[in-house]
């Protein structure tokens, strides 16, 4: 499926589950996402990771509702957290960011500046992750042991991320990226008609579940 359509579909589903209270839908979303992830050969480690990470917020939310006396609502909220995480993971594991950029630029007519901005933002998280690792190492070499909670770590990584994003714009310009000037495309991405059909069917199915249950 085209990455842009996929993103839109997932966003619509995510919005729908945040405005409705349907436990069954939440479970269906989690199970279907899980199946897709398994079919895409997700590693056991990442699978464990997406199960464990949401556990704290999920339990927290559930506990808060328990105090209010509404157990059912608590369960819905807790599963909703999981549904979000699974939807998001399904997207990132099955869509290539590069193709998303290409389709955003070519089919959604988003200005190239924004499309590559999205790319920059995606790379930024990776950059910050590496940056944090590097800063910890550099600090250890100087007998400074930064922990996960050290403000220096965040101050410094934000500093270098900012510096990096400035340099990125300059680097792009040097490779002839000029705002608002037309570009050609080496890889043409056309949205398959079937993709629209798929999207409509999925959203339709979600509505049915919502109405029936």
């Amino acid at each position, binding site marked *: 499926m085209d990455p842009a359509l996929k993103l839109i579909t997932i966003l619509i589903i995510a919005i729908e589950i945040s405005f409705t209270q349907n436990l069954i839908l939440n479970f269906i979303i989690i199970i279907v996402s899980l199946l897709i992830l398994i079919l895409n050969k997700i590693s056991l480690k990442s699978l464990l990771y997406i199960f464990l990470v949401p556990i704290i917020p999920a339990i927290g939310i559930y506990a808060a509702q328990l105090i209010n006396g509404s157990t059912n609502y608590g369960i819905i909220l807790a599963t909703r957290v999981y549904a979000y995480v699974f939807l998001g993971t399904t997207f990132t594991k099955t869509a290539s960011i590069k193709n998303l950029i290409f389709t955003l630029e070519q089919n959604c007519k988003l200005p190239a500046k924004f499309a590559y901005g999205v790319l920059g933002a995606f790379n930024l998280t990776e950059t910050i992750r590496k940056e944090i690792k590097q*800063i910890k190492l*550099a600090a250890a*070499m100087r007998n400074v042991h930064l922990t996960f909670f050290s403000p220096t770590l965040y101050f410094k990584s934000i500093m270098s991320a900012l510096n990096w994003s400035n*340099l990125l714009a300059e*680097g792009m*310009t040097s490779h*002839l*990226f*000029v705002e608002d000037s037309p570009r050609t495309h*080496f890889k043409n991405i056309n949205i398959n008609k079937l993709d629209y059909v798929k999207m409509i069917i999925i959203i339709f199915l979600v509505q049915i579940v919502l109405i029936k249950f």
Partner: protein
Amino acid sequence: MATLTIKNLKFNYANNKMPIFNDVNLNFAPKTLSIIHGPSGCGKSTLLKIIARLYPKYNEGISSGKIFLNQKDINLINELSFRKQIAMMFQNPNQQFCMQNGYDELIFTMENLQLPKDKISKKINEAIQFGNTSNIIYHPFDTLSGGEKQRVALSIIYAINPNIILLDEPFASVDYETRQILIGKLNQLKNMGKTIIVVDHDLSLYEKIFDNLIIYNNNTFKSISYKASIRKFEEFQISPAIKCSIPNKQPITLELKNISINNGDKKLIQNNSINFYQGYTTLITGKNGSGKTSLFNTLIKMHPFNGEIRLNQKNIRKIRIAKYYKNIGIVFQDSNKQFIKLTVKEEIQLSIKKHNYKLFSTIEIDNFIKNLGLESLLDQVVYSLSEGQQKKLQILSMLIMGHSVLLLDEPFKGVDLKSIEVINDMIKLAKTRGQTQIIISHQRYELKELVDFHVTLSNRKLEYKESF
């Protein structure tokens, strides 16, 4: 073909009162190769970026004066057509790439150039051939060695095919053979009618192909006469191989036993044993991409390996990281990866406060700061230092730490001859006080008195040699 003319150019960084250069008047004709040469921090990169119209846009500086491309003020030329005519290769290749690998970066650039789809493949193939990058072009940038990244960057410039080519230390991380090949290619480009401007600290191998040597003096850049140029080139004659001894029976600090290291699926070192000796300086050389930096990463426990490494007879797998790093330190190839503070002064003071062992007295440190030319930069933010200034600060900070073993990865990259001498003095002094040093360097100037032993990395083997 294009001519570039600079008239009364002056540039101030926003927070400085003094201009870093003024009264620059230069002319660059087609079919010529000009070299710009001067000490670290004199403003060479700044000058190239102004010519490339990247400054003042990406920097809060003020420039005055005019630059003409074929008699036309560059600020009046449409941006894209300007960029098609003048392209620049940055000193730090990491700052020029926005995609994940060379192939995607080439496509991105060609799309910006508005090349039709069917021409792009052909262009890319030519560029890959020019830079001899076929085996690295699909590799993610963060797995490439410094020299490999420079070759990719050069391929991209070739693909843009501009009339005026600006190169900022294009060979700082490439090995001598590759340097020879690439300088030959610059000559080809020149003969095709290009106007080439190179900034280089190292003047070797340019003698036969240069037209114009521009030197920084009295706050400005000026062409010098042919005769004076030749005299300058003589400082850079590569000395014949220097003899050194092969160690025997010296006390061992680091012992590598049956080591194998891979990078992805590439085998770098295979089942090799070697020792490094206490209180000596060992130079490691090897081609671009042979795995020198990966070896260093292994020694600081940041890269997986098979076999056993022992530091002072203790298996390093059994030493806790925090304790291990008190004994072994590294000067990274990329200077800005070393810094954890904001300003130059803070960076030096941190090392003084946190040192493992007091190698230098306060007076000695103050002297180093002065001799390295860092005295006037103490309050400057580390990011805004020139590449050479960063390198000097980085080495000073790591030497002050007083590790018993120090690894230095390309410590002379982009540093002028005079500063190389100062750095050498510091490293030598640290050695006389007991430090063991392992240095990776392509640069061979002034190494004679510093280096005790020489190890080469080739054919996946580390081996002691009798000369370097």
